[in-house]
């Protein structure tokens, strides 16, 4: 248990470190075409990361596929968001469809 607690503290320090490093690295260039280009890259990087985390956590439990219910539920949530549904509707739809499909035995 002591080892686990040391790992918890290191995880906290390490996680803060990744965030603080990003804050320290960003924002050096703030004006001009180079900044616009960097900002554009960053915006696309955020989309790439969010979609990557969304899809991998929807489809997999660790490195194995998690079954069909969750990916289908999340697909419903993404479709709703695409159709300009409010955030709450999208999220509740995702959870609701997932739960429903599981109750149906999928």
């Amino acid at each position, binding site marked *: 248990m002591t080892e686990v607690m040391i790992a918890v503290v290191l995880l906290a320090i390490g996680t803060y470190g990744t965030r603080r490093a990003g804050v320290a690295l960003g924002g050096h260039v703030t004006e001009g075409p180079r900044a616009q280009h960097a900002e554009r890259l960053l915006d696309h990087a*955020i989309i790439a*990361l969010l979609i990557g985390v969304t899809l991998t956590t929807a489809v997999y439990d660790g490195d194995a596929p998690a079954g069909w219910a969750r990916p289908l539920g999340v697909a419903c949530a993404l479709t709703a968001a695409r159709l300009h549904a409010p955030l*709450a509707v999208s999220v509740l739809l995702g959870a609701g469809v997932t739960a429903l499909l599981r109750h149906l035995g999928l």
Partner: protein
Amino acid sequence: MSCASSIWSDVPRELRRGVLLVTLAVALVGIAYGVTASADGFAVWQIVLLAVLVLAGSAELLFVGLIGAGASPWLALGASLLLNLRNVVYGMAASPLLLRRWERWCGAHLVNDETVALAAAPTGGPPRTVEQRRATFLVTGIGVALGWPVGAVIGSTLGQVVPEPEAWGLDAVLPALLGALAVPAIRGGSAFAVAVLAGVIALLAQPHVPLGLAPVLGLAAVAVLLVGRRDGGARGGAREVTS
């Protein structure tokens, strides 16, 4: 208190409901995390300590999950840190919003998927000011910093009562929330291409790389499609995202 209400009034009106909903959704995921962690043998105080100090939902779920599955704490630590590597990119995005010295030190702790997604949310009309985006970032960050541990406490106490968060679809809340935050920002051809390619890379890579690395590898999509191309056909669409 007046400081808190003035920062709330800087949050653009159309984003306020979003901020509250993100807080609520994060609390729901927190409940799922609390249930999972207590099933994995963690004590309530440990679950809350992780929630407050780490404040990174998916990394904590992974950490308690791996330890619950019998993995060594060091392996769980490495995997969770890998999962948090993307925070470097998010931190860079938040950097221009954190102006004062203390903000850079304290605000860094609030950098996560949700806060950056909302602070960078596209507008229907004129671009948002730095003040508005800063307020959105900070208020969402405070919401997440409160919602996550509160959800974790409820979940870890409820752990014995509701043993299966999956039956309620709670495990779908995190991907549904992050996806629903990302989708409105995908405007224009280049953003769409990046999203599709990044998603494909992450999905294909996931079974073959250490946990957490797949979404970071998806960043290759940005490199392939955008680096070195200052302007392209899709530029107009992407500028809207930037605003």
